[in-house]
């Protein structure tokens, strides 16, 4: 069984639009592995705005993004649709 790798990014403290740009930069860099399902991105942020913008952008790229709130932060997991 293939193992799915997960890359974690902690961008706590960053605010929009930098959070979105950084997330997009990492998605762009790994788009092939993300699309094939070999890789997932776990983005930790405390910026509430990007819990909408990142999943929407990921969805438009044919990916899936789930948001989970943990204490005062959000975990956004970007993976294959």
């Amino acid at each position, binding site marked *: 069984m293939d193992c799915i790798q997960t890359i974690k990014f902690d961008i706590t403290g960053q605010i*929009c*639009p*930098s959070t*979105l*740009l950084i997330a*997009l*930069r990492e*998605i*762009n860099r790994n*788009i092939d592995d993300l699309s094939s399902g070999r890789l997932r991105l776990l983005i930790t942020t405390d910026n509430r*705005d*990007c819990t*909408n*913008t990142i999943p*929407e*952008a990921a969805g*438009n*790229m*044919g990916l899936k993004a789930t948001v989970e709130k943990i204490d005062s932060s959000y975990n956004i997991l970007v993976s294959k649709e």
Partner: protein
Amino acid sequence: MAANLNNDISGATTGADEIMALRQEVTTLRSENRRLSMTLNLRNAYIRDKVNHLLNVMGTIPLREEELDEESIIELDPLGIIFDSFRHILGSLKTKNSQLQLLHDEMIAVFSASQVGIMVVDQEFRIISCNRRMKQQFFRELHNGEILGTCCKDIVCKGDVDDQLCAAKRILSGEKVASFKGWEVRGHIFDVEAAPIYDAAGAVKRIVLVYNEITDLKNSQKELEQLNVGLEQRVAERTALYREINKELESFCYSISHDLRAPLRHISGYSAILREEHSETLDQEGHDLLKRICIVGDKMGQMIDDLLRISRVSLTTMNFVQVDLSAIAQTTATMFCETDPARKVTIRISPGMTAKGDVTLLGLVIQNLIDNAWKYTANTGEAVIEVGRTIIKGSETFFVRDNGVGFDMAYRDKLFRIFERLHGQEFDGSGIGLATVQRIISRHRGEVWAEGAVGRGATIYFTLPASE
């Protein structure tokens, strides 16, 4: 000396010119620098504006001033990031478009090939699209231009249908699915189903209506119903005829049996006179023949009595009441035990067995079945007879079971025939018991059947539908 002075003067002039020239150049360069700075600032402003536009498209706020100085632009490269993102988004949209196109093509193929009429209307009931079958059913003579955009009321129901039976209206009033069975319009009958298509805000944008014509089916059903009525009538007439014939046969059988008794009585009487008054004139062979005549006469008398009994079973008028079968079985079992106290037979009777029927005839059924079980367990060491109730194929079924000699299932049909016996003279009986049981159960519209195996006992089952 003079030459040196000239040289000095000349050198001073040249230096001043150079300074002037340098000053001029500096002025020019400064001017160029201002122009370039202005151009750069304009370009930066342009880039900032475009980046902010794109960020707005991505759903986020503009970059702040401090995030877009020259160094940040190179370091963060927002244009590059957004460019790559849009490239990926376009790629994904292209793939999705292809999938949607395929889905659309499939839907169009299904839509066109469907053998039910399908129509899509907007909130004003204007026809947006319809398939070939829909045109055939409702507006065969119209062209697409005359159909699309036309209110469906004008060319489908044409006002012939009550508003309460308008499926599209039901959907607009908030129903998720509207369905009408046997919807009639101008001599045609349909099953109609309608479902909404919602817009992003959740309002009804379109209504899909499906018309499945069942006119032929309904007509066939009506014909079939009429045929069934006719058939039932014929069956009832035949049944009445057969009952009448059967009754006549039973009456005939009763009459014959009754009439046969008189000549038989004469034969027995003359035989008795012959034995008593002419005994001395008969030789040994004559005595033997006379004895045989008496035996077969008695046998014939027994058979006539049996025939009369079974005829009475068929001719008796039935009086349906609630019958306690457990109590009848108990009384019958006690009678057998008292009549033959030497026998050790375990008799188990389920309590609470009741059924609707004629109490006399059902008493005969129980009596005959226990009589059979009692008879065929005569040679069984630990005889057990069970009278009980079970459910078979969903119907309440009564049974009498024994562990006696049993029978071969190959001959199970012979069990119920009159005067048919599966066993020899070792067991008493004339073969009338189970035939009587079958007639009584048949008169109660029930069924009777037997199960068993040689040496492993027998079970007689019967149902009484009037109880259910």
